[in-house]
């Protein structure tokens, strides 16, 4: 951990570790407005401060702990689905609804184009304004959201389009309606169905990878994670509450759960990490989104070369042996679905 967040008035949930950075930023903007109003040339002071700022950001982000990363992933300025859609897509035609119950705004789906590559976008939507956030339940999808995603993914298969999935959710919504309409069943159906889709699936965890709610649109041929995203079986808060009956210990839980991009890469759960701009995506959203765009292009181009049979067989193998230690378990069958063998 970079510092004890508890000692800070911001509390365990904040970005307290960014305070030294914010102080320098405040000083810079103060000097800038001073130089404007007084017409004094203080550019050398500002240059010096900018250099200090860069060094401070480098130093802070070089020693981010797991809990700090969780907070970066949740940062309210971090780019969300709607901004990716507006910024990196050349075209987007949204397709709503599950044709059974409703249109869950916590998951957005639609036909997308990036530099001539067409695909089906499936993405958790968190929203930006307070109203949007409430509309999207803060990215916590209901069963109809997962069923909408499945319907559009099947459509993608029929249309011969690859699927790009953006994962960014604290988790599937825990509520009465969600349970009544089969939250567990909807997620399970999606996971099962994604193994049979005969088009490439690219999954990118752009922020929070919250448990089963993430996996419900998260089975892919390539699974990438942004540098400061996290992916976990349970939230650090939930884990701390169970183990220590103490939400204050979320930082300890975050460390124990091994939920950072590097941890997941080391365990073999994700295939790659998309680097973020210095100081995180919230500091330079456009740069971050450009990195994601580049990753989409190269992954889609690569997956486009794989014949459907091989794609489905490799997806099966990937998850059937995921994170396994060589020789620990009996060898599984080598290929996936019989109709693809």
């Amino acid at each position, binding site marked *: 951990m970079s510092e004890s967040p508890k000692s800070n008035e911001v509390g365990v949930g904040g970005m307290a570790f960014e305070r030294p950075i914010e102080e320098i930023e405040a000083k810079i903007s103060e000097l800038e407005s001073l130089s404007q109003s007084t017409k004094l040339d203080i550019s050398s002071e500002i240059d010096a401060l900018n250099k200090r700022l860069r060094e401070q950001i480098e130093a802070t982000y070089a020693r981010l702990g797991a809990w700090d990363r969780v907070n970066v992933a949740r940062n309210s300025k971090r780019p969300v689905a709607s901004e990716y859609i507006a910024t990196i897509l050349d075209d987007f035609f949204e397709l709503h609804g599950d044709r059974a119950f409703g249109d869950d705004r916590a998951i957005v789906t639609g036909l997308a184009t990036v530099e001539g590559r067409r695909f089906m976008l499936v993405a958790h939507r968190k929203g930006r304004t307070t109203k949007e956030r409430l509309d999207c339940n803060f990215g916590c999808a209901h069963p109809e959201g997962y069923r909408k995603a499945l319907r559009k993914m099947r459509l993608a298969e029929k249309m011969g389009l690859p699927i790009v999935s953006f994962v960014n959710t*604290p988790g599937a919504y*825990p509520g009465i309606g969600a349970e009544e309409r089969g*939250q567990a069943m909807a997620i399970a159906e999606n996971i099962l169905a994604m193994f049979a889709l005969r088009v490439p699936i690219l999954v990118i965890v752009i922020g929070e990878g919250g448990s*089963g709610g993430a*996996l419900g649109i998260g089975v892919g041929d390539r699974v990438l994670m942004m540098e400061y995203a996290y992916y976990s079986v349970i939230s650090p808060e*939930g884990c701390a509450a169970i183990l220590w009956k103490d*939400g204050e210990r979320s930082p300890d839980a975050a460390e124990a759960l091994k939920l950072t991009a590097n941890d997941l890469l080391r365990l073999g759960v994700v295939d790659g990490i998309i680097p973020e701009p210095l100081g995180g995506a919230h500091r330079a959203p456009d740069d971050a989104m450009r990195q994601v765009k580049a990753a989409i292009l190269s992954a889609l181009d690569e997956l486009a070369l794989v014949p459907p049979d091989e794609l489905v067989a490799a997806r099966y193998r990937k998850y059937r042996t995921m994170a396994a230690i060589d020789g620990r378990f009996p060898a*599984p069958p080598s290929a996936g679905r019989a109709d693809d063998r």
Partner: protein
Amino acid sequence: MDETKEIPTPSADRRDDAVPSAPRENEIVSKEEESDAEDAGNEKAPERPSRLSRLRFSKKKDMPGGLWLKCESCGQVIYRKELEEKGRVCPACDFHFTLPGSDRIRATLDEGTWREEYADLTPLDRLEFSEKVSYAEKIQNTLKRTGQNEAYLCGRGKILGRPVVLGVLDFSFMGGSMGEVVGEKFALAVELAERESLPMISFTSSGGARMHEGVISLMQMAKTCAALDRFNAAGGFSVSVMTHPTTGGVTASFASVCDITLAEPGALIGFAGPRVIATTIKQELPPGFQRAEFMLEKGMIDAIVRRTDLRDTLAKLVDYAGGD
């Protein structure tokens, strides 16, 4: 998750008998066992338990395995011996208490037909997960206490003469939580069923994914479904019986996507645990919420089958799967 506290469970301190037989249901699960499972759905942190619930907790824990116990479902005080004679079904309200794995196997298969497979696979503390005791230590203690290497038991057997592959997720081993070996054994069982052209019969009782294995346990949801997808494409037939309780990542993966899903009366079946939901929405949950009868009414399971009828029902379903 936290909710396992409210759930009648097999005793946590069955130290001497290798084969669990007469667990005590109304003593709440031990502190350690309670923390073994989490629902994959519980992303919202539950509030700290109130002082009251903690008092209740310690009071119940102190209650020895007496002659009487209180039914979790109807509150009736039951004579323990009568409960055992009734196959651990409440004589007052028909609530089906959790059965330990070995009892389940005995109650399901024809006598002498059980051939266990993959029994030697043992969990590993790959994340070096540490709370008060390390997960590695906890594994060792649970192994000693239960005489089992994992929460999942699988193998071949016969139900009224029909050969099947049976898999049982056992709540008395770390709350039936799904870690790497549980997911692996389910997949291996399904592959055994495919190789031998047998139906796959799956019983579950679980609090969800095993927190101590982090994201590896989450990925078992995908692994089990990968194996089932292959099985389905090869024409395999699977039946899932969800018993009390089946929640979290287990419900949100293999337990819900077998060809036929059954439940025992009164079984708690859901994604998020009731306490997490109540905390999130800040309101009382409706009576019977997430129980088998509720899930049936909402169209989420195919049928509720009483424990005494399960063998006949499973045999019948296996026969139907053979076609005309």
